[in-house]
């Protein structure tokens, strides 16, 4: 019963927090930020309190109400969702610390609106993580899209409104045109949309239709940013950096790949898909996105856009890993959600810190910046190494598992893609690191001498950099959690 209450609390606490923030915003900024931090801490306490039950093998669930006969709003926690919720809630704490530093440092307007919608977005992310069926997932998926729209359009100038239009356009189009029909189709043939161990479609669907349904799901979940539905992610980079960091490196995009992984495991069933040749295209499409996005990233001049394309590539890593359809690779996919989350949020924090301290946004401006901002660039270096997959960083662990899974399946497409993309990752991250630390500072362009970013921002990025390193050594609990997913799947 405790875990059931915790589910409700985890959904309501951010919403109540949003209400509190909205009210406090009229009184004082300090009160508002205090409430944000309190909400973030309460959420993480609630979510993490459910962990022991999941480790013990329990699957707490709760039905809220029946919307239409057979279709209800219901929640159930399984290991994958638990991991996603734990990740998102924990990083929200760090991100809130960072937001305070960033938003104040840049004197952003409409800060109350920013914190309110941030909290609503977190509630939506938790809803996605704990959803027990496709309908509930879809409900919170759309809520996440809508609640992040004001965050992307935050600045309110012509450019951000236009980018926000792309953001909303792509995400709504894909979800309404592809995901919704896929969900209705699933309900029609299977009679249910509940996430079930082993899948619900076995025997209900066969032949090319399986590949088609998979395609509707994969491209319908635009948040996973698989090419060609990736355009919204670079567009979303106009948002303030904390939004890019938590939402567009962790909560929103991971909600996408998480949903795809969850659908592959609990709707299709890994064994069912493995036996069905028409689903094979997914691996190639994901591999294509990994390589193409990395190539595009090579050509970027703007730091945040580079990180956005790097994210697109890394998201497809996860999809490719789940498409290998081998237990080791599925575990790798799940771990990569966490490892990439730590690494990428660090990189975005660093990019935002650089912007706050010096207003620099382009890569060529970063020459010699390591000496001015050693903490920031140190964290950036750790994050970048994790993206490449160099030990001792978290990125190495997930890459190891994905490669092991690929070898187990004798899948040379996946192996080649991983190798090539590692080279490409190195090719776009290492020059930046080199420039920042070793190149002499360009005297003409840096008119304004600057030091480190505000303390709160530096604190946050140091924490996430430490997490990136720490994940290399302490990944046991996550592994244990994810191995539970594979129970009931033949090796």
């Amino acid at each position, binding site marked *: 019963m405790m875990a059931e209450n915790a589910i409700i609390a985890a959904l309501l606490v951010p919403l109540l927090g949003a209400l509190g923030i909205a009210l406090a915003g009229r009184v004082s900024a300090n009160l508002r930020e205090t409430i944000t931090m309190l909400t973030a801490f309460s959420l993480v306490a609630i979510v993490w309190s459910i962990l022991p039950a999941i480790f013990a093998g329990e699957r707490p669930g709760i039905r809220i*109400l*029946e*919307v*239409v*006969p057979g*279709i209800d*709003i219901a929640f159930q926690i399984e290991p994958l969702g638990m991991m996603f919720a734990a990740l998102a809630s924990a990083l929200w704490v760090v991100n809130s610390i960072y937001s305070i530093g960033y938003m104040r440092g840049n004197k952003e307007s409409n800060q109350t609106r920013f914190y309110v919608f941030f909290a609503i977005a977190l509630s939506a992310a938790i809803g996605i993580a704990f959803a027990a069926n496709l*309908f509930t997932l*879809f*409900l919170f998926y*759309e*809520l996440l899209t*809508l609640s992040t729209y*004001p965050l992307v*359009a935050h600045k*309110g100038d012509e450019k951000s*409104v236009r980018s926000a*239009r792309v953001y*909303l356009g792509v995400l*709504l*189009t894909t979800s*309404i*045109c592809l995901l*919704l*029909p896929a969900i*209705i*189709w699933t*309900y*029609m043939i299977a009679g249910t949309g509940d996430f079930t161990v082993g899948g619900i479609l076995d025997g209900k669907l066969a032949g090319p239709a399986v590949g088609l349904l998979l395609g509707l799901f994969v491209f319908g979940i635009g948040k996973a940013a698989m090419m060609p539905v990736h355009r919204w992610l670079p567009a979303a980079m106009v948002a303030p950096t904390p939004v890019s960091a938590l939402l567009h490196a962790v909560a929103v995009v991971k909600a996408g790949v998480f949903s795809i992984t969850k659908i592959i495991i609990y709707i299709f069933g890994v064994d069912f898909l493995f036996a069905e040749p028409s689903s094979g295209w997914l691996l190639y499409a994901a591999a294509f996105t990994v390589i193409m996005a990395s190539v595009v990233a090579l050509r970027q001049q703007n730091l945040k856009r580079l990180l956005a394309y790097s994210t697109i590539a890394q998201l497809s890593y996860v999809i490719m890993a789940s498409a290998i359809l081998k237990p080791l690779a599925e575990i790798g996919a799940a771990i990569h959600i966490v490892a990439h989350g730590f690494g990428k949020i660090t990189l975005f924090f660093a990019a935002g810190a650089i912007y706050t301290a010096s207003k620099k946004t382009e890569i060529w401006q970063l020459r010699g910046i390591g000496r001015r901002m050693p903490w920031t660039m140190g964290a950036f270096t750790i994050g970048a190494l994790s993206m490449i997959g160099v030990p001792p960083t978290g990125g190495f662990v997930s890459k190891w598992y994905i490669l092991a899974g690929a070898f187990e399946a004798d899948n040379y497409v996946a192996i080649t893609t991983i190798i090539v993309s590692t080279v490409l990752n190195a090719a776009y991250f290492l020059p930046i690191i080199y420039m920042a630390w070793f190149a002499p500072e360009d005297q003409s362009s840096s008119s304004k001498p600057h030091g480190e970013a505000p303390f709160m921002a530096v604190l946050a990025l140091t924490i996430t950099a430490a997490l990136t390193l720490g994940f290399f050594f302490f990944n046991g609990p996550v592994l244990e959690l994810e191995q539970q997913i594979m129970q009931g799947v033949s090796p």
Partner: protein
Amino acid sequence: MSIVQHLSALQVVVPLLSAPLIVLLRPPGLAWAAATATSLMAFAIAIALALGVGNGNNFLYEMGSWPAPYGITLSVDSFSAILLLISTGASSLALLGGKRSIDTQVEASRQPLFYSAWLLLLAGLVGIVVAADAFNIFVFMEISSLASYVLIAGGPDRRALPAVFKYLIMGTIGATFYLIGIGLIYMMTGTLNMADMALRIQDVSDQSPILVAAGFITIGLALKAAVFPLHLWLPNAYTHAPHMVTVFLAACATKVALYVLIRFDFFVFQPNLVGHALQFAYFLMPLAILAILVASARAMFEPNLKRLLAYSSVAQIGYITLGASLVSKAGLTASALHIFNHSLAKGALFLSLACLAMRLPSLRLEALAGAGRAMPWTMAAFTLAGLSLIGVPGTAGFISKWHLITAVLSEGALGVGLAMVIVISSLMAAVYIWRVIEVAYFQLPLNGSTSVKEAPIELLLVTGLVALANIYFGLSSDFPLSLSTDAAELLIGSAQ
């Protein structure tokens, strides 16, 4: 006989009798109060009828106790109950919240007449719904049409006059066509009672006059219901009418005509005419698709908000006819459900426009700049209702869209195409709603005026209430769904 059995008659009698009395109430506040009280009473009767129907009661009422083929009968089933609820509900809420809006648009001396016409419109609409014979439907249709011409032209906007003239011409053609149709049927069968008609048509040796009658009735009612491409009267009529009249009309007027169209076809023609179900489907389905796509596209480029929503209504009528044109239980359920859900969404949208109109100089898109900050509650209601119109999950609009897509997908390959039409038009709805939201929330007012306040509290409360109803019925759709399912069973059951 207990009072319960008289409810279906009282539903019409109450507004019809109060209407002439209200003309005598010269103080405008009093006229408003009397009209609101009457409308609320009608709403209460409608709720009682709907609950009764939900419990399996069948309300068949014989006026003056004359038995069916000879006397006038009234009947209320699940399908009628939905229409009664939305008509009386829209009227009551618009009156409750709209006093100050009407005060600004209709001069005090004419207000008793205005409220009287309002109640006549209400009486006409509910009369159409409860009447069980074709001729009384015609009579009530004329009452409601004449009253609505008066109401639309009742505002200060002179452009309403040409709009209403167009409506009058087209509405009269529609009513005449309908009358020709029932004339033909009367000639062949000698009856006007619809249930009786359905039985006697079988005995008619030459069916071609009946087929011609079906054509006249369908076209005539399609004109009244603004089925594309017969919708030309609607956008201007809605745009230039007083705001509260638009709220009332948009929520229910066209749907009542559609109700008669569907009822006539499924009860009278389809059981009797060979292959008529196919004719019905082939006629309405292309028109529905065109309505959905063309009217949504038109709305995307419309700068006047009232006309934008009016075009959106034409598209939404397309959804309702699309569901009916499937001639399946699932399709009809979706249609009936969408009649209910769309009136919630469109009602809330036009109510929030009425709120905006109280404070802003015009209802053109650019005038809304900064409204998100100046009138946060109004715009919140607009956004919620807009999401329902788009069909975002968690709102009423999603429920009907879900049922509609499920219904079309069970039609096989054709269904996939239809599902595409539905999702594409949902996106178009997202575009035209979002244009408004963008301007209201992210553009600064042109002259930087900060004098704009929130709308009057009673109007705001009603608007918020209807907007929240969109969420409520999006999460708990049992009540409208059970009515719609019953209605669909009834219709499809008699058609076979």
